[in-house]
């Protein structure tokens, strides 16, 4: 009896300990919702600068009043129709000669926008407007740009703009990333996001 073997440790309570830890982590876990609409604010400007003169027909006025009603070009509109209306405006391509747009598929209405590069969407809201409504409108306007960019990217490069952006972020992307960057720039140049926000009215 020189050596006695060490007594075996009972592992039966291991499961309980693990469960305790598991429940702790289950409760503290928050799968964070960190995604949203990315925007760029205009840089601060001095009061003296004169705003550039834009043709009336190149501006698409979207207004939200304090009752959360949507007014597009001074006519009331349902939110679900906004995307279609914005696409129609941006894709109109009514310009002639230098202002012309050779890829637009719109109605070429001379009283609407000349060219997507000239078309500006002006979003105006009231101080009383609901944030959720504002986000809904922003979302629809961004969606209008995305739809058009997707269409052109599909035509020129055979894949959608959203896919191109995804590929750019993907580390396993096999193609040429510099090319891809140039292609994305080209699409962005064709449909620049010109979304102007006026100071809210009191």
């Amino acid at each position, binding site marked *: 009896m020189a050596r006695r073997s060490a007594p075996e440790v009972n592992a039966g309570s291991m499961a309980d300990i693990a469960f305790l830890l598991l429940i702790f982590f289950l409760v503290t876990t928050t799968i964070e919702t960190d*995604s*949203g*609409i990315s925007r760029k604010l205009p840089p601060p400007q001095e009061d003296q600068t004169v705003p550039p003169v834009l043709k009336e027909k190149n501006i698409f006025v979207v207004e939200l009043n304090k009752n959360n009603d949507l007014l597009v070009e001074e006519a009331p509109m349902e939110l679900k129709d906004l995307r279609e209306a914005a696409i129609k405006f941006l894709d109109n391509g009514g310009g002639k000669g230098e202002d012309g747009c050779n890829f637009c598929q719109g109605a070429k209405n001379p009283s609407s926008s000349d060219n997507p590069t000239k078309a500006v969407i002006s979003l105006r809201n009231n101080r009383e407007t609901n*944030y959720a409504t504002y986000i809904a409108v922003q979302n629809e306007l961004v969606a209008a740009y995305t739809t058009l960019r997707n269409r052109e990217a599909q035509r020129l490069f055979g894949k959608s703009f959203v896919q191109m952006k995804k590929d750019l972020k993907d580390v396993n992307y096999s193609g040429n990333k510099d090319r891809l960057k140039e292609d994305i720039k080209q699409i962005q140049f064709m449909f620049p996001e010109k979304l102007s926000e006026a100071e809210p009215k009191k």
Partner: protein
Amino acid sequence: MSKFKKKKSGELPAISTASLPDIVFMLLFFFMVATVMRQNTLMIENKLPMADQIEKLDKKDLVMYIYAGKPSSRYRASAGNQARIQLNDKFSDVSDIKSFILAERAAKREEVIPFLTTALKVDGETNMGLVGDIKSELREVQALKINYTTRSGSAVDNLK
């Protein structure tokens, strides 16, 4: 002869629970890895609006968070019923945003400062007046990259 006779037992053998700890540990490790501890304790109601044109904010360390919304019921007595801004762990005024941004910037390495994004986590019921004030403050300190944090879903549902 009886050597080959099987014992006839009516009861089922007990299921071994020896592998239960392994299973639980597997789950435990999954949640430990997936857990992101909340940085800020929310003192406001924060029901984000929905949108579907969303981009992910993947670099967490390059994001500054500004929360806004009505104070939650515990803080209503002291903070009032009107929508407030929350920076870090306390209620703040619009005028505090500038110093908050500058402090956040000072804590980051210099080369990443141009990539800093401000995430606006604003409750859907907030008025745009407050959001407009936040935005004009951000413009003045040149924090121009913003992200309206939303949940993913159909934007039309916001109106209900």
